[in-house]
């Protein structure tokens, strides 16, 4: 009976230590480790479907973060160094006050340029609200001066005082009044997006933890048998970790793909001049939703590992 005399009696040095490093060994796998866990169970689809839903939501939250960020940037930087001066004087004084204003602007440090908008430009501005057949001559449309500021900007108080003296009907508007709450709203939206992403990640971790705990509890006899034949806790944990991480990764790939497809189908008609940035992903930003499955797998890996070792410690 050769079997019992050393049926599988290679030297002890042959006992391969499982590959070090959690994620590496997860990818490479421990030889046959995952086969010791039964292949089926309700936790399979629970994990896959939940991971898909979470990944889809994560892509949506990511899109919200990006669009809020782009919009806030547009409102902050696009309009930050511009101002408009309205000359609301009556017809007899309008030209004189316009020239006085332009002169004041020319001699004010911090003003890069200033120009009077043409009638055609003003008509184009009003057309979206009042229509193309605008009776421009009959309307009390003020003269508009577009002002571009340097990076340092002008001494706002000094400029206002000078305009008050030299062009009393000139109204200086640096857009601050309406821009500030919009920027604040966009920033808040961005924050909410980050919070949503964090909540999605936390919910994912909680779901995987619960599913893996259920699987570990259901497989308690199996764990007892594995321990009886000399399995180390890291071997047992790795079998479950690998199983749940791969399931979460599969679900996340499905969910993120659906999310990316949905955003790819969002119309792009808004364009760069729109008040609100295009909703979705642009260019290199598409790499971010593509990372959602990787992040999901990392969360599932960490959550299952913690849950598995805690359960194994409790069952000692």
């Amino acid at each position, binding site marked *: 009976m050769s079997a019992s005399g050393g*049926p599988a009696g290679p030297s002890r040095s042959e006992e391969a230590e499982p590959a070090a490093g959690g994620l590496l060994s997860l990818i490479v796998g421990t030889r046959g480790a995952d086969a010791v866990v039964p292949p089926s169970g309700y936790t399979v689809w629970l994990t896959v479907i939940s991971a898909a839903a979470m990944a889809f939501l994560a892509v949506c939250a990511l899109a919200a973060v990006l669009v809020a960020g782009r919009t806030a940037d547009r409102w902050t930087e696009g309009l930050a160094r511009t101002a408009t001066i309205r000359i609301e004087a009556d017809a007899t004084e309008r030209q004189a006050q316009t020239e006085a204003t332009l002169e004041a602007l020319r001699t004010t440090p911090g003003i890069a340029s200033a120009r009077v908008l043409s009638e055609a430009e003003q008509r184009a501005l009003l057309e979206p609200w009042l229509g193309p057949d605008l009776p421009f001559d009959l309307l009390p449309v003020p003269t508009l001066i577009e002002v571009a500021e340097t990076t340092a900007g002008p001494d706002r108080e000094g400029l206002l005082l000078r305009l008050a003296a030299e062009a009393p009907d000139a109204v200086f508007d640096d857009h601050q009044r309406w821009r500030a709450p919009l920027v604040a709203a966009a920033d808040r939206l961005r924050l909410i997006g980050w919070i949503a992403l964090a909540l999605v990640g936390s919910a994912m971790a909680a779901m995987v933890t619960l599913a893996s705990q259920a699987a570990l509890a259901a497989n308690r006899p199996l764990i007892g048998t594995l321990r009886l034949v000399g399995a*180390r806790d890291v071997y047992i944990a790795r079998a479950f970790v690998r199983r749940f991480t791969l399931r979460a990764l599969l679900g996340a790939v499905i969910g993120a793909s659906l999310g990316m497809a949905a955003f790819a189908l969002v119309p792009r008609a808004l364009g760069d001049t729109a008040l609100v940035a295009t909703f979705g992903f642009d260019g290199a930003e598409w790499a971010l939703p593509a990372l959602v499955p990787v992040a999901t797998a990392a969360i599932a890996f960490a959550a299952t590992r913690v849950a598995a070792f805690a359960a194994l410690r409790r069952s000692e």
Partner: protein
Amino acid sequence: MGDLIAFEDASFRYGTREILANVTFALAPGSFHFLTGPSGSGKTTLLKLCYLALRPSAGRMLVRGRDAAEMASDDIARLRQRIGVVHQDCTFLDHLTVRENIALPLRVMGRRLEQHRGDLDDLIGWVGLRDRAEAYPPELSGGERQRAALARAVIGDPDLIIADEPTGNVDWDMAERLMRLLVELNRLGKSILLATHDLSLIRATKSQASVRVLRLKDARMQLAGADL
């Protein structure tokens, strides 16, 4: 060579109940011990202490000279790779075939199963399960399960085989067959510790091997290592 396992005045309590009290004995390499005693006398607890599923509440238990109390969980796992265990109600992984279950110790040790295919086939033939190798555990009879458990216990080439009432669920012919396998393993140098309350089994084995008996009664060891 030192003892495989040595108990030095070891006791085990479960709550306020004393299951084992001041037990002292040693298992030498190549020895064959029967552990007897009435039901509830602590046989299973003593076996669990031997493969470190439990640890003494008091006293010392040394495994290859190392104090069990100082062993970490990884040390215990490695130790169990050197001990084959057969239970009366042997448990298997029901989603794996008999062959895969028998190979399980090799798998958890990280060994390449392809390199041990011949040994595995020999072992499956030795326990008489060649025709059942691709069956699943729920399809096996009681005797077949015991033989599969014995094969699983020895596949890793252990130093010690611990069996808890391995013949409890099988008929006399199968019990004799199992005992012959254990005697053969003992002749190959394996230490055997077998718990049973079946004295006829002990008598039948005495003619084939040099066996010694440990008797437990009322949580205490009454005979430690005496010949039959």
